[in-house]
């Protein structure tokens, strides 16, 4: 994951009990937006801990963090590269742990909102924006998979209609509910 160019400066913060690792940066597009990359401990799994990777905006006016804002700040690639650049940093600190990535737009709640408010993008029982965020990460993985697997192992997570979860060795271009990654 060589993304040294075209990324923003990252400020790092780690909780002393390893409950989270956070990176902060300022997106300098049309306006300055404070962004947060958050690796939050979820639970242990066997001998490893799993951290959830989430990403959002911080609003200093009302002291809130949101992960579903579409900033349209004109700097999508530097922002995306900056988020990706934090992953090797995570594994430098936690080489034996795992990361789970989920979209913020792959929930029933999101689908229902889309159904009610966005007729244009909701067609034939499907929302075109559904799971779009995870798809952006997946596209990067799919495109660079052959290089990435030299350093990382990926797993794809999906659910069935009974809400049972499944995890399998990552298959390129397959739709997933979540992606789990670990360092080799």
């Amino acid at each position, binding site marked *: 994951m060589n993304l040294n160019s075209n990324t923003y*400066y990252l*400020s790092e*913060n780690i*909780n002393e009990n390893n409950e*989270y690792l*956070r990176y*902060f*940066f*300022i997106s300098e597009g049309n306006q300055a937006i*404070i962004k*947060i990359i*958050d690796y*939050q401990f*979820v*639970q242990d*799994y*066997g001998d490893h801990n*799993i951290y*959830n990777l*989430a990403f*959002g905006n*911080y609003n*200093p006016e009302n*002291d809130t*963090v949101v*992960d579903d804002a579409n900033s349209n700040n004109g700097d999508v690639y530097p922002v995306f590269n900056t988020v990706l650049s934090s992953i090797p940093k995570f594994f430098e600190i936690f080489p034996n742990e*795992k990361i*789970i990535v*989920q979209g*913020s737009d792959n*929930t029933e709640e999101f689908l229902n909102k889309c159904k009610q408010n966005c007729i244009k993008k909701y067609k034939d029982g499907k929302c075109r924006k559904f799971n779009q965020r995870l798809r952006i990460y997946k596209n990067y993985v799919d495109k660079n998979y052959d290089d990435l697997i030299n350093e990382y*192992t990926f*797993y794809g*997570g999906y*659910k069935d209609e009974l*809400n*049972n*979860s*499944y*995890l*399998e*060795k990552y298959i390129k271009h397959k739709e997933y*509910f*979540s992606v*789990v990654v*670990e360092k080799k």
Partner: protein
Amino acid sequence: MGKIIKNDKYIKVSEAALLSLVSSKLKERVLFPKKVETAKDFLNNLHFKPSKEV
């Protein structure tokens, strides 16, 4: 921490100082609790493990 400059109306802080302030403000808070819950839900309902244990 970076430089902080004050006048009557504004406080000018460096990028590093600003991010450090935000970081302190959010200390010990779980920022995305719903995400943690859905991740837990997903992991606790796993019905199949790949050949290499995850």
